[in-house]
């Protein structure tokens, strides 16, 4: 096993953990946390595996394209988190609920 593959596997583990938590937990804040951890896992796969490619300079910098993509992904994730939290806070204010009401996920 090489370093990129190692981090790729760690990323996949994060994805699976996040998915488990997403399904198991009912509290919406936890679902948001789970999605964030999942996305971190995906980003780790993206960047970790990029280390396999020959890079420039010493020490070789990571492939810039996945980096740019992950930057984009991070910003999208924070936007999603912000929107989700606003909706959840609003739901709580209206109904007092912090879950979706009917369990069972999606």
């Amino acid at each position, binding site marked *: 096993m090489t370093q990129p593959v190692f981090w790729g596997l760690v990323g996949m583990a994060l*994805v699976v953990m996040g998915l488990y938590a997403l399904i198991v937990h009912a509290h919406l804040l936890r679902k948001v946390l789970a*999605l964030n951890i999942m996305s971190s896992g*995906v980003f780790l796969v*993206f960047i970790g595996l990029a280390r396999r490619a020959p890079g420039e300079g010493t020490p070789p910098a990571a492939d810039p*394209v996945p980096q740019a993509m992950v930057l984009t992904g991070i910003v999208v994730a924070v936007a*999603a988190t912000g*929107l989700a939290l606003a*909706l959840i806070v609003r739901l709580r204010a*209206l*109904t007092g609920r912090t879950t979706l009401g009917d369990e069972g996920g999606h």
Partner: protein
Amino acid sequence: MPLQLLGPGGLGPDLLLAAVFLPLAAALVCFLLPRLAATLGLISALLTAAATLALMLGVLAGGGMEVQLGGWQAPLGIRWRSDGLSAALMAMTAVVGAMVSLYAAAYFRHTAYERTYFWPIWLVLWAALNALFLSADLFNLYVTLELLGFAAVSLTALGGGAAALTGAIRYLLVSVLGSLAYLLGVALVYHGCGTVDIALVAACVPDAPRPALKVAVAAMIAGLLLKTALFPFHVWLPPAHGSAPAPVSAVLSALVVKASFYLVLRLWLDVLGGGDGDGSGRWLAELLGVLGAAAVIWGSVLALRQARLKLLIAYSTVAQIGYLFMAFPLAVAGGAAAWTGALYLALAHGLAKAAMFLSAGSLLRFGGHDRIAELDSAVHRLPLTLTAFALAGVSIMGLPPSGGFIGKWLLLEAAFQQGRFVLAAVILLGGVLAAAYVFKVVGHAFTPAERERRLRSVPPGMEWSALLLALAAIVLGLTLPLISPLLQVGTDAAVAPPVSAAVALTAGGAV
């Protein structure tokens, strides 16, 4: 032929630009000037629709178009590519979008708060749809998917009530989860092929490491199925579509769901080369077919059991999505007409379902509720709206000569050719069930209205936009000779000259 002016050599690239940037810029202006949002929004919506339709004519006349964004060649930069498939879906979006905009201008007339947020978000959504249909870059598609998802979620939440919020949150979670699965697939594709351009990935697929590629495709398709609400993943759809404001429901059901379906189709056709490469493609197609068939039955039965009109329509969407996926096993086994059928069903469903939701909105606005059993009084006073609903129902049922009929006919033809009688039976049964739930509503038009309640008036813009959409769904059935050549445009994208040149360039760049 003057239409050539709209093609690749003439205004074509500018029209591509307009299709994405015009609604986007309009959205910003609407956001900055809330007071003028409705006026500006409506004008720019009509302009966008005109530009998109011109683009479709251009594609029809002059063939597919390509734009290198930023002027960079494919592996490095992002391509916009407009072929028949995307032009057809964009045109459908334009028609639905224009009508929904007309409807919304009337619908939100008295609710300032909803109006100020509806317009910018809706225009962004439209820009995202066009961007998605144009993009030929897997990662860029991820961004457009997220854009689309967030816009849809925000619009759903506009309803403001607890039901709308719950629907929106569920939608957001599902949407983000689906996008993440898709992104995971993109990551693996990038690491397997060193590019995210669709054509280049397609060229690399035969040599790509197998398990990685299979997992990548599985992850991408699973994510997209989640967003498309195919059968076991459909649970989120009815609450979201059923609780949003009427124009929003129309957009969600008619367009947003189609976007992720389009992407599945795109991946299947352009990246996997139609899925007949090896056994696993076949196997996946069969799975999709089974899920689609289950969706048709399950969605229709549930639609029939709903007591509320908007939920009925939403479950009908679940059922109709099933048809789209039933095309996969049929097409993979050699019935290429099944693709045309699925596409036709997608277009017809877009028009018809938008008409249905808009009519439901008018009924709801008029009667103050959408309980089907008590619709009589509203239905009697709004004959145009009812007509729109019924005509849209004709297309949903798949009766001739509507667009839905053509789609079903093509699917049935493929099914009978291959002797797949079970699929054929499901297609037919779905039509009968659709008739049952459509007439469950329409039947109320003929019962004597008992209650005279104080009812709100419905502006003519709301009634006519729905009716025009429904008529479009019917007329679509007569346009196969026009649209069929359109769908052929760019089907051989993988071997077209500009792309093979790009493939050569990657080969140089990657080594």
